[in-house]
C-alpha cells in the first residue's frame, strides 16, 4: 500500500443508524467538507474492520453503495478511490456565503435568540427551502 488512507470511520453502535450507512454518511460528509478529494484512497476493508471490529461485509456494502452513486471507484488490487467531490465547492471555498451566515447568526443572537432558537429557525428555513428535494 503506497499511501495511507485519507480518512477513518467512527462507528457508533448505539446510534440506531445502520453501520454501513454510517460509513456512507461519513464519506459523504468528508467529501462535502473537502477532507476527501478526487484521487484519495478510502481505507481498505481490512483497515476499517481492524480498527472498528465491524463485519467486513458491512464495509463492502457501504463501498458498493458509494460506487453505485458514482462517488468512488474500486480499482482491482489497488483499493477504492474517490472519483468526485460532493455538493458545491462553495461550502469550503466561498467565504462570502459563510460570512453572510456568520453575520446573520450574530444578528440573531443580538436579537435575543439562544443557540436552540437559532438552530430551530435555521432548520425550519432549510426544510422549507429544500422541500421535495431528494436528501
Amino acid at each position, binding site marked *: 500500500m503506497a499511501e495511507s488512507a485519507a480518512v477513518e470511520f467512527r462507528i457508533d453502535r448505539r446510534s440506531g443508524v445502520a*453501520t454501513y450507512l454510517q460509513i456512507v454518511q461519513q464519506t459523504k460528509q468528508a467529501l462535502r467538507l473537502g477532507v476527501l478529494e478526487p484521487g484519495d484512497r478510502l481505507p481498505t476493508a481490512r483497515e476499517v*474492520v*481492524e*480498527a472498528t471490529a465491524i*463485519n467486513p461485509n458491512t464495509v463492502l456494502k457501504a463501498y458498493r453503495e458509494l460506487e453505485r452513486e458514482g462517488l468512488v471507484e474500486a480499482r482491482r488490487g489497488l483499493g477504492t478511490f474517490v472519483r468526485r467531490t460532493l455538493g458545491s465547492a462553495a461550502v469550503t471555498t466561498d467565504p462570502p456565503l459563510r460570512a453572510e451566515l456568520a453575520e446573520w447568526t450574530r444578528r440573531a443572537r443580538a436579537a435575543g435568540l439562544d443557540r436552540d432558537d437559532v438552530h430551530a429557525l435555521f432548520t425550519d428555513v432549510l426544510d422549507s427551502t429544500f422541500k421535495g428535494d431528494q436528501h
Partner: protein
Amino acid sequence: MTGAAIEANGLGMTYGRKRGWALRDCSFRLPAGRICALVGPNGAGKSTLLSLAAGLLRPAEGSVRVLGSTPAEARPRIAYVSQDKPLYPQLTVADTLWAGAELNPATWDRAAADRIAGPLPQDAKVRALSGGQRTRLALALALGKRPELMLLDELMADLDPLARHQLMGLLMAEAAEHGTTIVMSSHILTELEGSCDYLLFVDGGRVRLGGESDDIVAAHALVTGQARDLAPHTVVESRTTGRQLTALVRREGPLDDTVWDVTEPSLEELLLAHLRSPEAPPLLTPSAHARQEVAAV
C-alpha cells in the same frame, strides 16, 4: 464462496440417558465465508454444537459435515478454541507458539500469530498467565494455523473491553483478507452483534433462528395498535395493556400500517421475545436450510 462451512442434519447429542438431550433435531447450514454469532442462553447446546463440528464429540444421532467432509477429515482446516482454552501450563509462550508452528507445518502463519501474541511476555510460563493472556495465546495458535473455519466458544468472556475490541478487530481483519468462516458463541449478543452477519440462535437444544442477521430482523416487525386479530402473521409474543396491543410478529405478507404502528425490532428484542416464547416456530432463511432434509427424517 458457495459451499457450506457447516451442515447439520437431524443432529442430536446426549451425555447419558438421565440427562436428556443436549441437542436434538438440529438441521441447518452455514454458508462459507460468513461470520456467525452462535447465541442462546446458558445450557442451550452451543458448546455441544461446536464440539460436534470440531469432531471432538460423536453425534448420538444425525450427522454434521464440515467444509464438505467429516469433522475428522476437515480437522487440519479447522481451528477450535474451547471455552476453557486448554494449553500446556508448563510451556512458555514462546514454546507454545513454536509447538503451533511444528504441529501445523503446512499452513503456519507466523506473522498472524505474532500480531495476536506480540504483547505477551514470551518467556512466561502459561500457568503464570492471566485468563485474558491465555485467551490471547489460544487465539494466536488458532489464527497462526490459518484455518478455513474457526470455532470459538465463549472466546471473549474473560477479556477486558479494550482487548476484546482489539482482538475482534484482528479477527475481522483476518476474515476480510482470507475469507475465513468464523463461528463465535456467546450468551451476550451485544458482544457479537456488530461483527457478525449470520446468526444461529440455539435454545433448548434446537436451532430456533438461523440465517443472515439482516434478513432475520427484516422478517419480523414490532407492531402496536388497537387490540385486534393479527392473522395471517405469526405472533411470536404479544401483550395487551388496556385497549393497546403490542406484539412481535413474523410477517406473512405486508403489514397494514394504517392500522398498526410498525417498527423494526432490534436483534436483541427479537431474541428476548423468542426466549420468552418457547413455542414460537423456528425460522431458517433459505441459505440456512440443510440441503439433504430427507436424510434427517
